[in-house]
């Protein structure tokens, strides 16, 4: 009798312990995102890049206000002047006497806009196209993928230059072009991911427990796709920035007096023998931004995409 009571007590105690433990587990349990955040924050290069990128972004947004000049204003007294605090030209001026500090930041706005735009289009169109192809499967999937293959083997840069020839230079055209190219890889990746997710046990379980397909897509597929979408969107941004800079460098991008980093590098390259600062500042901004985006993209991939680890 006594032993039974003791046994009971022990059992109760262990029950309590298990309960306690599971409660604690619940507190300590981490979601996919918390886990990812922790992994991302332990990646020093990615965190440093994040800080630098935030600084660059703030500078680009608020920097032009701190200067007494505008991007198209000509300072007749200081043409091709080196950087100096006294004249207020922190990065010097170009050969027309326009303030390079403001122009560099103004160019950065274009680059960031282009990058954001490319990522947005890729996320929206690429995710919809890819998940549709993957989810519907069969002949539709086959057809959609063939179309993608054809689009992908296009030499897009040349088609864009062709369009610029016909319709003249405009920032709108660049946006259209970037929108057209950016979603292709994303669609492919999302499709692959959807295909593999579709046959996972938890989707089967959802089907068995009677969830509708919209529920499955929104509750089960999309949250699981989100990680990979974020990773590839962030890896896409530097590519888009390069795309625009490439066109601007050739003089086919934004029009004067507006400017972008590519156009500034081009101007700087023509006068680098006499005025190195005209090349140095836009180039360093471009390169630092590209490095940061790459590091952040790599960090996000390591944090969110367990396959590559």
């Amino acid at each position: 009798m006594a032993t039974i009571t003791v046994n009971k007590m022990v059992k109760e105690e262990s029950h309590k312990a298990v309960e306690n433990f599971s409660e604690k587990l619940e507190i300590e349990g981490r979601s996919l995102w918390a886990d990812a955040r922790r992994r991302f924050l332990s990646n020093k290069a990615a965190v440093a890049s994040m800080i630098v990128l935030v600084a660059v972004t703030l500078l680009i947004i608020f920097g032009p206000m701190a200067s007494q000049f505008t991007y198209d204003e000509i300072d007749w007294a200081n043409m091709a002047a080196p950087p100096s605090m006294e004249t207020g030209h922190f990065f010097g001026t170009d050969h027309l006497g326009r303030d390079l500090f403001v122009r560099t930041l103004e160019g950065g706005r274009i680059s960031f806009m282009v990058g954001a735009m490319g990522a947005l289009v890729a996320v929206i169109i690429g995710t919809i196209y890819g998940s549709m192809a993957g989810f519907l499967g069969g002949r539709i999937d086959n057809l959609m993928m063939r179309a993608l293959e054809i689009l992908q083997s296009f030499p897009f840069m040349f088609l864009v230059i062709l369009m610029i020839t016909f319709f003249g230079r405009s920032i709108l055209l660049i946006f259209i072009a970037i929108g057209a190219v950016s979603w292709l890889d994303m669609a492919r990746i999302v499709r692959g991911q959807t295909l593999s997710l579709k046959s996972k046990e938890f989707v089967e379980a959802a089907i068995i427990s009677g969830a509708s397909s919209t529920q499955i897509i929104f509750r089960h597929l999309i949250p699981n796709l989100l990680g990979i979408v974020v990773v590839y969107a962030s890896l896409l941004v530097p590519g888009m920035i390069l795309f625009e800079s490439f066109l601007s460098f050739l003089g086919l991008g934004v029009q004067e007096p507006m400017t972008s980093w590519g156009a500034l590098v081009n101007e700087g390259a023509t006068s680098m023998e006499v005025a190195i600062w005209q090349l140095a500042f836009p180039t360093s901004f471009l390169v630092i931004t590209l490095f940061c985006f790459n590091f952040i993209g790599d960090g996000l991939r390591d944090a969110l995409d367990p396959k590559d680890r």
Partner: protein
Amino acid sequence: MFTFILKRIGVAIPTLFILVLLSFFLMQMAPGSPFTGDFNMPPEILANLEAKYHLDKPLWQQFAYYLKDLLHGDLGPSFKYKDYTVNELVAQSFPVSITIGALAFLFTVIMGVGLGTLAALRQNSWIDYTVMTFSMVGVVLPSFVIAPLMVLIFSISLKWLPAGGWNDGSWQNMVLPVAAMAILYVAAVARIMRSSMIETLNSNFIRTARAKGLPRRHIIFKHALKPALLPVVSYLGPAFVGIITGSVVIETVFGLPGIGQHFVNGALNRDYSLVLGLTIIIGSLTILFTAVVDILYGLIDPKIRVGG
């Protein structure tokens, strides 16, 4: 294998056709006609001119005429360079571009594979770290930043090499453009080669070869190199496209009389027929090369043939 090749060509041909179709209709959508310009032409002359270039016909017939000319290899007259046909301009500039491009491509493959293998064999040594740092920098820096920097260092500061010009293709004039064009892809190929070589060296058949007591050189060149090269081969298509695209920038920076310059000037001068012709030539080249690389890849790797 045969069906695989057929399948791959089955993608390439519609792509080519769509490229031509798209380019042609983009031109049709462009505002204005080639003859609305500086002065008002008498309507009779305009009608004659339009008849000569088939502009009075319905659109699909115009396209048929254009396609017919294209299949005969006739790209039409240049709008900007009077008395020149696009064919003549291409014939002048193509050799320059192809020389630079082919050299850059060769340099990319040899240097990339070499550096990647070296880094893989001396994993985690200073050679490995140097190669990997270089390849990180090379992947991020765009060619239009590398090219001016190279000019600044090697031409202006050190005065070793000319800053630009073609000079009938003397080697001093080619070094910088080829290097600037290739460096990005050397970096990418080295990176791919390194990781695939490391993976191959860890596989079972290499262990067997080592257990048999084969000399190290024999293992690397006879056994490991071929499977390790596979991912590199699949990267050659994109690398080719990239080198061709990059050549536009490189030719602009170094002032080379190649196709890239015509491309940029044509776009700035709105020389429709020139840019259209060049787009079609480069587009076809790209599509063909990608198809050839894919087929080559299928030849080497049976898995692709069966799966794809």
